[in-house]
């Protein structure tokens, strides 16, 4: 029998432990793969749509705010070196009223011969989209655009033609139809450039940029989704953080199980060494074991991660009313899953085992001996080093001394280092602390309590491992719990302040990325205002552009003087901001102000169809739209800078006491025109559901943390029990009953499991405060801190319950 067969047989001998080990590795890998797949899928949602429409080797010329311009500009662009062809087009978002749910679609129009171009009055709809909305060839279809609601005939584009067109997420109309729908007159709003094969894209781009008149810009098609960059970056950071926590937890569990396994196999390794197996051969057995667990865990984790991501995107899509594309599992994700699984497995099983394997066989034979290689005098200095480096990087992030990109990249590893250092510093001090409490423990629990304390005090390293996992679990639960709940409370407060309307009227449900927004004629506002019970109507338009070169979303908005300023300002500066907005100033979201490193009184340069324009910053407010990359402008200021863009949302306020009347009138009005209406309470419900979902997710995560902690404590206690075998044997020999031994071991589990809870709670609060400061430094959000007693009591109580459960499950060794 070879060593592979020997290793496999050993894995099969302990099915429970092997299953736990495999699960730990698979869960860690699954979390990482799910995070990557989800991030890639989210990134690809818009990119594929726009790259599909334009072609991968293409560039686009556009005016900021998607404003119109003269099609004659396309001709000279075709002569720029490296450009094969230039196609004048109209591409804009239209609203598709549907029996199912209104949808935002990209409406594309080009000259005949340049792409799909149906006759005037006809809309070409890809078959997939037509089926989704129950459209039939020859049937009628209505589309909302800036100029109003158009009525057209449906022509279905077969799948083969759709593939040729590059994307299924658009409808095609003739150029005159598009110009009428979006009020462009004789203008276009985009020139699609096809780059010659082999041309240097950067050189071509620079050549085109130098040939453009002021007010026109060039971009890659996928850059249209750049406004979602902030949102994606924040989501990526969160998912990366979660992945790091999951991997750390998986590593710890696997490490604990490996330690347990090593202890149980100590004499077996001694026999192998006695029979002539050199240390590296025994090491090879464990290396093979780690490889098998890593490979199997990697495969399971990769598949599990893909399933998790699919479920997450499906749920997120359902919550947002969107049909998100399913995630794809590519080589990058497979390599990540396998690589991480093997890394966790080798790091947690093989590396710690190397010293064990090099231990002389006689030492391994001695049952009374401690685990070989246990005392490590470098651990405390190393932990202090990790803590110092981690805290220093976090402080640099919080104070803004690191650049944003460096800080955001350094934040997750710095956090991991801080936590590891904290655990390494605090955990070894917990067993001696409990040992100092031997008298009160004896008073409460009798001689079993005193023996329990004395026995684990004799094995400080093993006891510290068991205490440490409880400490880290409570720290993580309290720290992240506070930060997440406080941030959610802030989001809720922002919704209340920023959207005070009774009803919201749109062309289609909102796109969370603010990329596809249906423009509606401004005149609808007047019609809505004339309805019964309506006191006033405000307008919001989302205008994508750039500020100081960074992608931003301009929130162009009317601010009714009779109502309070609907901005989530931190200080009492509403009146001053209202005046400044009317004067033409901008109010920036905290995140954007932080990214651009500007504050009230500074100026930012906005890209507009008229060329760059300097706008003064009047103030900074809480704003989460576009991941915080947003700025407010007064409606008239935005119109003067970007031209008429239509309104994307009408905020309808009812007269006091006439809300029902207004609601009924607005709903009736919108139903006849295929507009989407959302009541304020529905919006609140949606926000509440979202925050409830996130809160539920948080509690689930905390539960997982507690379960992992319980497993860790169980491992630690089991390992201690193995080490204490001789002591237990002696105790039994001198007449201690099995029941009392069990009670002693249970007390050990409870004491070790709960020892870290008080310190963990304090460190968790400190962690949350530190996280808030770092988030403010890197993303600009000031999250108001508030003690969350629920999180505190649940985390501490959960760890005590877990310790009790472990204690109850402790068998008489």
């Amino acid at each position, binding site marked *: 029998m070879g060593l592979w067969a*020997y290793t496999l047989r050993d894995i099969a001998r302990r099915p429970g432990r092997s299953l736990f080990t495999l699960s730990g590795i698979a869960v860690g890998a699954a979390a990482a793969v799910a995070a990557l797949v989800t991030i890639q899928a989210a990134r690809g949602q818009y990119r594929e749509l726009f790259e599909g429409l334009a072609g991968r080797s293409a560039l686009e010329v556009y005016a900021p705010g998607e404003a119109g311009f003269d099609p004659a500009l396309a001709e000279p662009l075709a002569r720029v070196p490296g450009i094969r062809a230039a196609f004048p087009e109209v591409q804009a978002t239209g609203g598709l009223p549907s029996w199912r749910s209104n949808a935002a679609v990209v409406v594309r129009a080009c000259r005949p011969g340049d792409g799909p171009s149906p006759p005037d009055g006809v809309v070409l709809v890809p078959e997939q989209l037509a089926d989704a909305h129950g459209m039939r060839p020859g049937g009628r279809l209505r589309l909302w655009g800036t100029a109003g609601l158009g009525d057209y005939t449906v022509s279905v584009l077969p799948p083969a033609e759709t593939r040729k067109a590059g994307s299924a997420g658009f409808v095609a109309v003739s150029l005159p139809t598009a110009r009428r729908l979006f009020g462009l007159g004789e203008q276009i709003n985009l020139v699609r450039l096809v780059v010659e094969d082999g041309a240097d894209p950067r050189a071509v781009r620079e050549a085109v940029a130098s040939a453009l008149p002021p007010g026109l810009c060039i971009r890659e098609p996928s850059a249209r989704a750049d406004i979602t960059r902030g949102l994606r970056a924040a989501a990526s950071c969160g998912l990366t953080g979660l992945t790091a926590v999951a991997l750390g937890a998986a590593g710890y569990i696997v490490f604990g199980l490996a330690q347990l396994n090593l202890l149980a196999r100590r004499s077996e390794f001694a026999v*192998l060494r*006695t029979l*002539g*197996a*050199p240390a590296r051969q025994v090491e090879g057995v464990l290396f093979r074991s780690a490889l098998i667990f890593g490979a199997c865990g990697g495969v399971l984790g990769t598949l599990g991660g893909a399933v998790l991501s699919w479920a997450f995107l499906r749920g997120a899509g359902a919550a947002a009313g969107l049909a998100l594309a399913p995630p794809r599992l590519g080589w990058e994700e497979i390599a990540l899953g396998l690589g991480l699984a093997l890394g966790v497995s080798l790091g947690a099983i093989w590396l710690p085992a190397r010293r064990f394997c090099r231990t002389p066989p006689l030492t391994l034979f001695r049952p009374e001996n401690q685990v070989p290689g246990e005392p490590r005098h470098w651990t405390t200095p190393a932990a202090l080093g990790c803590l110092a480096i981690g805290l220093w990087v976090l402080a640099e992030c919080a104070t803004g001394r690191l650049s944003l990109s460096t800080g955001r990249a350094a934040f997750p590893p710095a956090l991991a280092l801080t936590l590891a250092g904290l655990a390494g510093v605090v955990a070894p001090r917990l067993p001696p602390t409990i040992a100092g409490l031997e008298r009160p423990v004896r008073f409460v629990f009798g001689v079993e309590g005193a023996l329990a304390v004395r026995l684990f005090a004799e094995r400080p390293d093993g006891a510290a491992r068991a205490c440490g996992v409880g400490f880290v679990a409570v720290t993580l639960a309290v720290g992240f719990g506070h930060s997440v709940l406080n941030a959610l409370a802030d989001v809720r407060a922002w919704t209340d302040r920023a959207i005070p309307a009774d009803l919201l009227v749109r062309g289609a449900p909102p796109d969370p990325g603010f990329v596809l927004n249906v423009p509606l004629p401004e005149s609808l506002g007047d019609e809505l205002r004339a309805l019964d019970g309506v006191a006033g109507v405000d307008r919001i338009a989302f205008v994508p552009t750039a500020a100081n070169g960074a992608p931003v979303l301009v929130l162009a908005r009317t601010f009714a003087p009779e109502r309070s300023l609907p901005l989530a300002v931190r200080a009492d500066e509403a009146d001053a901001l209202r005046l400044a907005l009317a004067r033409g100033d901008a109010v920036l979201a905290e995140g954007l102000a932080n990214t651009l490193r500007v504050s009230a009184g500074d100026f930012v340069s906005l890209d507009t169809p008229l060329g760059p324009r300097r706008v003064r910053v009047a103030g900074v407010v809480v704003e989460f739209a576009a991941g915080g990359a947003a700025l407010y402008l007064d409606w008239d200021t935005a119109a003067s800078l970007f031209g008429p863009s239509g309104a994307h949302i009408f905020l309808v306020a009812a007269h006091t006491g006439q809300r029902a009347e207004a609601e009924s009138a607005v709903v009736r009005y919108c139903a006849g025109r295929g507009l989407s209406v959302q009541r304020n309470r529905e919006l609140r419900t949606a926000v509440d559901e979202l925050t409830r979902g996130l809160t539920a997710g948080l509690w689930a995560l905390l539960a997982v943390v507690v379960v992992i902690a319980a497993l860790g404590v169980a491992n630690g206690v089991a390992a201690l029990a193995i080490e204490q075998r001789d002591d237990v044997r002696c105790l039994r020999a001198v007449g201690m009953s099995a029941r009392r031994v069990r009670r002693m071991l249970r007390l050990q589990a409870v004491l070790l499991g709960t020892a870290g809870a008080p310190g963990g709670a304090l460190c968790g609060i400190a962690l949350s405060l530190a996280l808030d400061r770092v988030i403010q430094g890197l993303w600009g959000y000031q999250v108001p801190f508030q003690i969350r007693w629920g999180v505190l009591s649940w985390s501490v109580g959960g760890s005590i319950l877990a310790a009790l459960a472990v204690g109850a499950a402790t068998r008489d060794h």
Partner: protein
Amino acid sequence: MTDERSVVVHHVTKVYGVGAAQVAALRGASTAVRAGEFVAVTGPSGCGKSTLLHLLAGLDTPTTGTVLINGTDIGRLDEDARTAFRGRHIGVVFQSFNLLGILTAEENVALPLTLGGVPAVTATRKARAALDRVGLGARAKHRPTEMSGGEQQRVAVARAIVTDPSLILADEPTGNLDAENGRAVFDLLRGLAGARRTVVLVTHDPALAARADRVVRLADGVVVGVPDASGL
């Protein structure tokens, strides 16, 4: 006569612990064993019998003095070299059998060969032959848990001889067995000693020791009486 000596122990001391906690298990023990001899090491509890055996097996190193096995000073070898030497030249039998529960009797016996890189077919053939020699050929596919204590110890003996070592060391091999099985295992080991194979057995049973070619008596860490028959 020197070249006939399989084992030479010369002024060996072994001290455990440091400072005030020091304990000397051997205090200058000297002895020698001729090739092919069957020697029993006896003495009261704590006299250093097992320590001496561990030094002979290369499982431990002497604090001072030399231990020569077939002319090689194994105390001067590093851990890996000692392990390799043990694998080639020494077979060890433990009081508590130390068979691996996940392996069958045949696989347990073949293990030293497998670890030494011997092809599986050859290892299995030799293991079967060793089991036949200890009378357990019919139990080759059984696991240790399916065998009696006596059978397990015979499997351990088969494992010790499968590499055809020149020295077999047995540490209280009958200690966990009843009288009948103890005698059977002792007879087995007695039969293994011969022209090319030396057997050193630690026992506290005077009756068994009396049946050895020669008895080395240890007391308080030193060999008492005549150290060896070759006049060292």
